[in-house]
């Protein structure tokens, strides 16, 4: 497709412009930034997986709003993205009041927030939750200062009547203010729950996706071998002095894209045996060779860290 054809497609297909907007704006705000904030976190699992559901509801809500916008002859847009409407489109000219817009005046913003808060729950991250609140504040400012005056000017009395009927943010429950109270309670629970979950999560848990096996490297000495899977060339990760193979818990699953990854905990560490002797370099190297031979690994590349295996090198020169 030539550049001219691409330009033509963008100009004539609203869904393409809507998709570009979705990737650039909600994609950055609701996915890229929370994902970056969660970079070093491991999802705690269990109850916190409910975050998937919350984000899923948010994504579905966004999709429904997106379809309403397309059906009304526009695309999702922000007031200040109007100068680039040739690329990402602009809002429809008639007021949308159907679907989720019967419940709240800003269901698309709410959907984006749900995607963010879902990730806060999934990662039990108060940082993502706080970021979500900040984004909400930003949305509020944009809506109150820019969008509502603009819509009032465009739609006149019809918009005023719509505002009287439908709340700005929170779905109206049976009694006035109850929806807002429910959200306030929910947000507080998320923030404190995330904070407590992270504070309580001081003990190490084995969450890396691997199988564990034990290989006898010497009589009465069994070494812990972690197997992160993968296909093709076998690779062996050696842990250093004072460490077990779990030091590679985050790295190994990514390395498994290039081959079958094993990690060996040297004697004395992790779940490997802790005999009184056999800690000299030559014996440590022999341990590695015993494991490699027992697993029938054919000349695997070895990655070591820190005082990982001077013995391997020493022993390798002899073997």
């Amino acid at each position, binding site marked *: 497709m030539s550049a001219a054809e691409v330009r033509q497609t963008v100009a004539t297909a609203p869904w393409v412009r809507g998709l570009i907007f979705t990737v650039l704006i909600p994609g950055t705000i609701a996915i890229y930034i929370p994902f970056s904030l969660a970079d070093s976190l491991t999802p705690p699992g269990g109850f916190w997986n409910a975050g998937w559901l919350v984000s899923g509801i948010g994504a579905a809500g966004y999709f429904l709003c997106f379809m309403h916008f397309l059906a009304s002859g526009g695309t999702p847009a922000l007031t200040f993205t109007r100068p680039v409407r040739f690329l990402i489109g602009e809002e429809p000219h008639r007021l949308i009041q159907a679907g989720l817009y019967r419940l709240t005046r800003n269901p698309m913003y709410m959907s984006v927030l749900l995607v963010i808060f879902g990730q806060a729950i999934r990662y039990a991250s108060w940082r993502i939750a706080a970021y979500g609140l900040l984004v909400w504040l930003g949305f509020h400012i944009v809506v109150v200062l820019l969008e509502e005056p603009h819509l009032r000017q465009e739609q006149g009395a019809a918009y005023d009547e719509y505002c009287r009927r439908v709340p700005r943010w929170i779905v109206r429950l049976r009694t006035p203010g109850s929806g807002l109270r429910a959200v306030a309670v929910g947000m507080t629970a998320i923030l404190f729950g995330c904070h407590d979950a992270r504070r309580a999560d001081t003990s190490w848990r084995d969450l890396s996706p691997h199988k564990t096996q034990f290989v006898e490297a010497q009589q009465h000495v069994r070494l812990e071998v972690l197997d992160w899977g993968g296909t093709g060339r076998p690779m062996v990760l050696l842990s250093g002095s004072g460490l077990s193979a779990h030091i590679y818990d*985050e*790295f190994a699953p990514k390395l498994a894209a*290039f081959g079958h990854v094993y990690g060996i905990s040297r004697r004395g560490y992790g779940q490997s045996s802790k005999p009184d002797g056999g800690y000299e370099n030559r014996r440590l190297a022999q341990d590695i060779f015993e494991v490699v031979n027992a697993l029938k690994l054919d000349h695997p590349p070895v990655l070591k860290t820190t005082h990982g295996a001077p013995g391997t090198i020493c022993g390798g020169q002899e073997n």
Partner: protein
Amino acid sequence: LWRPGKLIPKNESERAALEAFVDATQKYEDRWTANLRESVPDARIVDLPGAGHFLFISRKSEVLSEIARFLEVLD
């Protein structure tokens, strides 16, 4: 490792000790690098300044791409 600005020495004596440590470490690194180059002339040595001790954690993506590059050489 200590780098200027990373750890502020409390006095001149501490500064001298830190600098001596850095100098000695640098000499060790230089010797190690020279040894590797001598024994494996076509070895590719990648320097990741500031990566710290556990570079496969601090610089995951760079380490992965270098391993991938190394594995291609083996194929």
